[in-house]
């Protein structure tokens, strides 16, 4: 099965092609929005390099956030249009899951942290005791201090001598000082080549979703924003009756997470 993986949800962005579960081409760069915009050109080149016809693709995998709203929409839109126009299934991958999957196996609980705006981050905690990360608890959005409180509440930092947590993601770099001040040697910042989502990982995880029959219709695919736009928030504060109707983002991915 030939699958294209797209990630534009954070500070890195890229595209990958996999065949039979193996990454055969991968482009990833520390990007600005400008670079995400050119990913369809990169894909076109990669297909040529491999001698593949675009119609050889049998699936599309995409990271759907949480992350940059504008950035994620670029990849999600490309994925939904590829899925629709090639009539192939789409596997949606939560960006936090993809970052956790960078670590193939570890005894330590893994906590990817992705920067939202200002001092707000997205995060979740995983056990990586097999080839796929298992999410423990919920996806969270909040201040960096709350991340550490959440992990403590899950009971992973009880023993100051032995309990450690591995932090990944751009948030782990940005908030390194705060994390280390709070946790000292209990905090392990992941190796730099593991910190961001990789399009190859997204492709493999998306393929697994597709194989499991967990596909998203191109019409329904939207980013996993984990939060309303600030205007919607302001509106809901003004009109509490609106909030009762529940107009949050649709199509939240399975809370159990992917892989």
């Amino acid at each position: 099965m030939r699958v294209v993986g797209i990630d534009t949800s954070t500070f890195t962005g890229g595209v990958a092609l996999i065949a039979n579960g193996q990454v055969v081409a991968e482009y990833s760069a520390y990007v600005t929005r400008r670079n995400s915009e050119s990913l369809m050109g990169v894909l076109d080149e990669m297909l040529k390099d491999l001698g593949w016809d675009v119609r050889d693709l049998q699936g599309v995998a995409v990271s759907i956030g949480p992350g940059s709203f504008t950035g994620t929409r670029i990849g999600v839109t490309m994925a939904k249009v590829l899925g629709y126009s090639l009539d192939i299934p789409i596997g949606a991958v939560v960006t936090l899951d993809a970052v956790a999957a960078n670590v193939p196996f570890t005894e330590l609980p893994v906590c990817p942290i992705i920067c939202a705006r200002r001092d707000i981050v997205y995060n979740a905690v995983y056990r990586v005791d097999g080839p796929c990360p298992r999410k423990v608890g919920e996806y969270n959005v909040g201040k960096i201090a709350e991340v550490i409180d959440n992990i403590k509440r899950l009971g992973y930092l009880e023993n100051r001598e032995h309990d450690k947590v591995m932090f990944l993601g751009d948030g782990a770099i940005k908030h390194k000082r705060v994390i280390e001040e709070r946790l000292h040697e209990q905090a392990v910042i992941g190796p730099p080549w593991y910190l961001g989502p990789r399009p190859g990982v997204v492709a493999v995880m998306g393929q697994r979703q597709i194989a499991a029959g967990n596909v998203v219709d191109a019409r329904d695919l939207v980013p996993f924003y984990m939060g309303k736009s600030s205007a919607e928030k302001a509106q809901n504060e003004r009109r509490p009756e609106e909030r009762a109707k529940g107009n949050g983002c649709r199509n939240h991915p399975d809370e159990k997470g992917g892989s």
Partner: protein
Amino acid sequence: MIMLGIETSCDETAVAVLEGTGEPSPRALKLRSNIIASQIALHRQFGGVVPEVASRRHVETIIPVIEKALSEADVSLSDITAVTATHGPGLVGAVLVGLSAAKALAVALSIPFIGVNHVEAHMYANFIEHPGLRPPFVCLVVSGGHSDLVYLKDYGDYQVMGRTRDDAAGEAFDKVARTLGLSYPGGPAIDGVAREGNPQAVRFPRAYLEKGSYDFSFSGLKTSVVNYVANVEREGNEIFVPDIAASFQEAVVDVLVDKTLRAASEKAVTTVALAGGVAANSRLRQEFSKRAQRKDLDVKYPSPVLCTDNAAMVACVGYFQAVSGKSSSLDLPAVPNLHLE
């Protein structure tokens, strides 16, 4: 040739299918479908377009709108010759949705991609409905986002003679409408209520700027409407909305018509064209037609659905580029403040 156009630069998710014979002439064009999913109702609760809300809605709507445009045109994806989308000016997050969709379509279908300037597209809306229209002509593009006076020498060859130095004309309409307690969007609201008002009731200032300038300025006019309303209310009197709306509209129309007709005579053209959302304003059309007739000038304007944002106009620019052998790189970025060359 069958062009698919995509437009998402502001609050409309729009897709159109435009067919052409391959000749570089408006006579070659046949509009097969023109689908517009308007977000006006969504943004009305905020009193204006909220960029993040608009971008989210574009992502949700883009595929259904593409499907509807294809089915109404009675074509399938494999019939499309080239795909074209707005790459600016506009709200960057919103532009990016349509632009990303167009690039993905181009790759999936192995067809050329053409990125289009939205202001240029507004001008080209005139070609869709006026097969006899030929450059050169002078075109006034007025909308919520832009006010440009353009000399269109030939297809793809422009001289921008003037543009707004502050607010766009449509922006002034929206702000004045808010001051008068009228609904969003302000253009149609003022146009409607002004019909019951006296355009000579209040003499609002006309900003002609320095002698010979073709630039516009609407922020002073907007401020004087706001001050006028505040003064009347401070004196304990009630404002008569239709008179103020009509007088404001008259001040805008006067300047737009004067400058456009002066530009037409400088360039010695026989045709002036209107474009953009404000070109749907009934008073503007009326004044243009009346005063242009006196000067023996032909006035063209698109029907209202092609004045406001739509994708048919985007497909139209794409068509003329495609027939002259042009296409864009898949690297083409979204440019929020893109100007006409």
